[in-house]
C-alpha cells in the first residue's frame, strides 16, 4: 500500500518537473509553424504558387454533391494553380472557423460574413490587400466602387467583396393569404401585419383541419450575423440591437428604448402563439426547410429571407414539395420603412505572418483578381462549371417528366443557358457562389440569366432597401463578441419566451453582465 502511494508521488513529481522544464524557453507551438514557413528568400516579385486552399461556407452552391469536382477542375485549368476547397457546414460556420483557427490549420483564402470580417480585421490574421486591390486589373470594370470602399477599416482593406450585400424581404405564402381573405397590398402597418399573423395562426390556412399553423418563422429572434434584425424586421422596426454608428459616434443599440419596445412586441406576439417557438434556436436552414417542407403541418405563413434569387428558389421549393407555387413579397410596413441592405460577405486572404507579401500577392492574383475577370473564371464563380451547371450547346431536357408540372426546355447551339441541377434533375441550376444580379463588375461574355422571379425580386428589393449599419471593429469587441451575443440571447429569451419584464431583464442579464465590456468597446471605437 505504502509503495503505491510513494510511486504515485513519484509520478506526480516527474510530471511537475516535466511541466517546469517544458516551460522554459519553449515558444508557443502555433507560432513555430509560422516562423518555420518563413524562409524569406528575396524571391519576392514572382512567387511560384502551386496550391491554394480555400475555405467556404454553404454559399458555394456547387457542393460535393453538386458538381464541385468539375468546378474545381475547370478553375484549375483556367488559372493553372491547384485549388483545394474545404466547404464547412453553413449554419455553424463561425464556430467552425474559430475551431479551424485554433487548429492553426489556416487556409489561404476564405469567405467571411461582414461581421466576422469586422471581428477578424483588427487581429492581424487577415492580409492587408489595400494595394493589391487598388492596382487590380479588374478595377476598370467595377461599376460599384463603394461596396469595397465601405469595407475599409481605418483606410485599409482586409477583405474583398465581388458582389453587393443583398438583404432580406418578407415573403408570404399566397395561398394562405387567399385562404384568409387578405390582400397583401393592405398590409401597411404593424397592426395589419399582426392581424395577418393572427389569421394565419387561427384560421387554419393550410386547410388540414388542425389548428397547427403559425404566423411567422425565423432563424432566431435576434440574428447572430449582421444585420441582426434581418429575419424579423417588422418586430424590430427602428431598433438596431448592436453596436453601430449613429452620425459619427458609435453607440450600443441594444440597451435602448427602441430595442426594449421591439422585445415587448416580440413578447406579445410570442405569447399569442404567432411565432413558431423553434425560432429561438433555428438556424437559417432549419427555418427555411420547415417553411417550404412538403409537410406543412406546423408551418408558418410568413418568412423573411434573402431577396432576389431566393425569391425564385423558395418558390421552386414550394412547388417541388407540392405545396404551392406562389409567394407574395411584402412591401416594408410603415414602421420598417425599408429593408436593410447588409454589408457584403467578403473573401479574405490569410497573412502567413512572414512579413513578406509576395505569396499573398500571388494568391490575390490567382484567386481574387481572376474572380472578376469578366470571363471564364468569373463565370465559374457566378454560374459554375461549363456543361455541368450551364452550357452553350444545343440541348433539350425535361423536368418533372410525367407530372403536371412537366416542363421542357429547348436551347439552340451557342445559346447560354443553365442546366438541370446535378443533384435534382427536376429543377434548374440557378447560380454558384456569386449572385449574377449582385455583381460589382459585370460579365463581359454576355452570359446573363437573371430573369423571372429572381429579377423581379432584385428589383423589388432595390426599391425598398437602405444600407445596413457598419459592423464595429475593435479588439475588445473581437474578444468578447461571443459573450455579448450570449448576454443578448439571454435577455431576448427571458423577455420573449418567458414573459419577463424587459427593463429588469435588460439590467440583470445584459448591463450587469456585459455592460462594462460594451462600454470598453465603445470607448475603443470612439477613441482617438
Amino acid at each position, binding site marked *: 500500500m505504502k509503495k503505491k502511494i510513494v510511486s504515485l508521488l513519484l509520478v506526480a513529481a516527474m510530471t511537475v518537473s516535466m511541466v517546469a522544464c517544458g516551460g522554459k524557453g519553449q515558444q508557443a507551438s502555433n507560432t513555430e509553424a509560422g516562423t518555420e514557413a518563413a524562409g524569406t528568400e528575396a524571391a519576392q516579385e514572382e512567387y511560384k504558387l502551386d496550391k491554394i486552399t480555400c475555405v467556404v461556407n454553404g454559399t458555394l452552391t456547387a457542393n460535393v454533391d453538386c458538381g464541385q469536382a468539375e468546378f474545381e477542375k475547370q478553375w484549375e485549368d483556367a488559372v493553372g494553380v491547384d485549388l483545394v476547397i474545404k466547404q*464547412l*457546414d453553413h449554419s455553424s460556420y463561425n464556430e467552425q472557423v474559430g475551431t479551424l483557427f485554433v*487548429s492553426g*490549420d489556416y487556409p489561404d483564402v476564405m469567405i467571411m460574413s461582414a461581421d466576422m470580417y469586422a471581428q477578424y480585421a483588427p487581429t492581424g490574421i487577415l492580409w492587408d490587400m489595400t494595394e493589391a486591390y487598388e492596382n487590380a486589373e479588374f478595377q476598370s470594370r467595377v461599376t460599384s466602387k463603394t461596396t469595397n470602399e465601405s469595407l475599409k477599416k481605418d483606410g485599409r482593406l482586409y477583405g474583398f467583396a465581388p458582389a453587393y450585400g443583398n438583404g432580406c424581404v418578407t415573403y408570404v405564402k399566397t395561398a394562405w393569404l387567399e385562404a384568409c381573405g387578405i390582400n397583401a397590398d393592405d398590409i401597411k402597418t404593424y397592426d395589419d401585419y399582426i392581424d395577418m399573423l393572427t389569421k394565419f395562426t387561427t384560421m387554419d390556412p393550410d386547410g388540414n383541419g388542425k389548428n397547427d399553423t403559425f404566423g411567422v418563422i425565423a432563424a432566431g429572434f435576434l440574428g447572430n450575423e449582421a444585420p441582426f434584425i434581418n429575419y424579423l424586421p417588422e418586430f424590430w422596426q427602428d431598433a438596431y440591437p448592436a453596436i453601430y454608428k449613429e452620425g459619427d459616434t458609435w453607440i450600443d443599440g441594444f440597451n435602448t428604448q427602441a430595442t426594449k419596445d421591439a422585445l415587448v412586441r416580440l413578447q406579445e406576439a410570442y405569447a399569442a402563439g404567432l411565432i413558431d417557438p423553434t425560432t429561438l*434556436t433555428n438556424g437559417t436552414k432549419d427555418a427555411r*426547410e420547415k417553411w417550404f417542407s*412538403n409537410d406543412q*403541418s406546423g408551418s408558418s405563413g410568413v418568412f423573411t429571407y434573402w431577396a432576389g434569387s431566393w425569391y425564385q428558389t423558395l418558390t421552386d421549393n414550394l412547388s417541388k414539395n407540392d405545396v404551392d407555387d406562389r409567394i407574395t413579397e411584402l412591401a416594408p410596413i410603415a414602421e420598417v420603412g425599408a429593408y436593410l441592405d447588409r454589408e457584403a460577405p467578403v473573401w479574405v486572404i490569410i497573412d502567413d505572418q512572414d512579413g513578406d507579401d509576395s505569396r499573398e500577392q500571388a494568391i490575390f492574383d490567382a484567386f481574387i483578381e481572376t474572380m472578376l475577370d469578366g470571363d471564364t473564371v468569373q463565370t465559374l464563380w457566378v454560374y459554375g462549371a461549363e456543361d455541368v451547371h450551364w452550357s452553350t450547346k444545343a440541348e433539350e431536357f425535361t423536368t418533372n417528366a410525367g407530372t403536371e408540372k412537366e416542363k421542357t426546355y429547348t436551347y439552340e447551339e451557342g445559346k447560354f443557358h443553365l442546366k438541370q441541377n446535378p*443533384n435534382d434533375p427536376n429543377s434548374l441550376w440557378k447560380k454558384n457562389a456569386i449572385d449574377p444580379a449582385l455583381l460589382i463588375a459585370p460579365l463581359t461574355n454576355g452570359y446573363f440569366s437573371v430573369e423571372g422571379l429572381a429579377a423581379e425580386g432584385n428589383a423589388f428589393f432595390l426599391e425598398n432597401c437602405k444600407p445596413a449599419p457598419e459592423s464595429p471593429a475593435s479588439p475588445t469587441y473581437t474578444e468578447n463578441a461571443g459573450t455579448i451575443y450570449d448576454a443578448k440571447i439571454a435577455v431576448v429569451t427571458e423577455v420573449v419566451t418567458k414573459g419577463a419584464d424587459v427593463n429588469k431583464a435588460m439590467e440583470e442579464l445584459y448591463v450587469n453582465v456585459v455592460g462594462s465590456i460594451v462600454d470598453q468597446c465603445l470607448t475603443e471605437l470612439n477613441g482617438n
Partner: protein
Amino acid sequence: MAREKIVVKPKKKKIHVFDVVNYLVFVIIALIIIVPIWKVIVDSFNAVGVYQFQLWPNRPTLDGYKTIIETQKLYQPFLNSVYTTVAGALLGLVLSTLGGYVLAQKDLPGRNLLAAFLLFTMIFSGGMIPEYLVMKQLHLVNNMWILVVKHGINVYNLVLMKNFFEGIPESLYEAAKIDGCSPMGIFIRIVLPLSKAALASIGLMFAVTVWNDYSTVKIYITDPDQVNFQYKLRNMIMDGDTPTTAYAVSQTTLFNAGIVCAILPFMIAYPFLQKYFVKGVNIGAVKE
C-alpha cells in the same frame, strides 16, 4: 463473470397481487424505452412528420434512406465511422491486453510504478486546450484517425483486462515458462486463446466508444470529409445543416432515418453481443 444466479424458491401456484403489479410496472418501463425508439423507426419510413405514435408508417417511403445512401455529405461520414470504429477497437484491444497482461505479472519488479504511471492519468489531465495543442503537433487535427488514437488507451479497460488475466490459473503460466516460452509466446499461445470472451467484451467497449463519439469530432475536425456520422447527424438535426437533394424528403423523415442509421450497426449486433457487454462490466465491477 458472475453468472446470474436466480433465486429459485418453491413457487406457490397462487397469483400474487404483487406479481401483477410488478409485471404492470415493467410493461410501462418497457414501453418508455420502446416508444421513442419505435417512433423514430416508424417516422423514418413515413413521408410526413406526425406527432402521433404510430405502429406502422401511414405514408411509407424509403426516401430518407435513399437520401443518405446517395448523398456524399451523408454516406461519407458513415463510412468514416465504420473505418475508425474497426481500427479503434483493434488498437484499443492491442494496448489494453498488452498493458493488462504485463500488469498482471505479480512478481514483476516495478509493477506498482508502472501501474501508478497509468493510474495517475485518471487523477490528473492536461485539459482540453493542452491536449489540442499536442494533437496539432501530431497532425491529428482535422484527421479522422484522431478518433482511433484518442481512445486507444483506456486505463479503465486496461485494468479490466488485468483483473481478467489475474484470474487465469498461474499454473498454466508456470508450465509454459518451464517449456521455455517467452512472455510474448505465453501471451499469444496461452493467454489470448483463454480470453476470447473478455476480448470480445473489451473490443466491443472500444467499438461503442469510438462509434458514438461526437465531441472529439466537434472539437478537432472541421474538414467535412473527415467527420463521422454522429457529428453529421447532430449537425443535421440540431444545427439544421441538411443537405439538399433530389428527393422531396421531409426533414423529419430524413432526421429519423439518420438516427436509425446511427444506431443500426449496434442494434443488429446487440442481441448476440449483449452478454459480452454485460460481461465487460461484471469483470470489473463485481470481482471484488
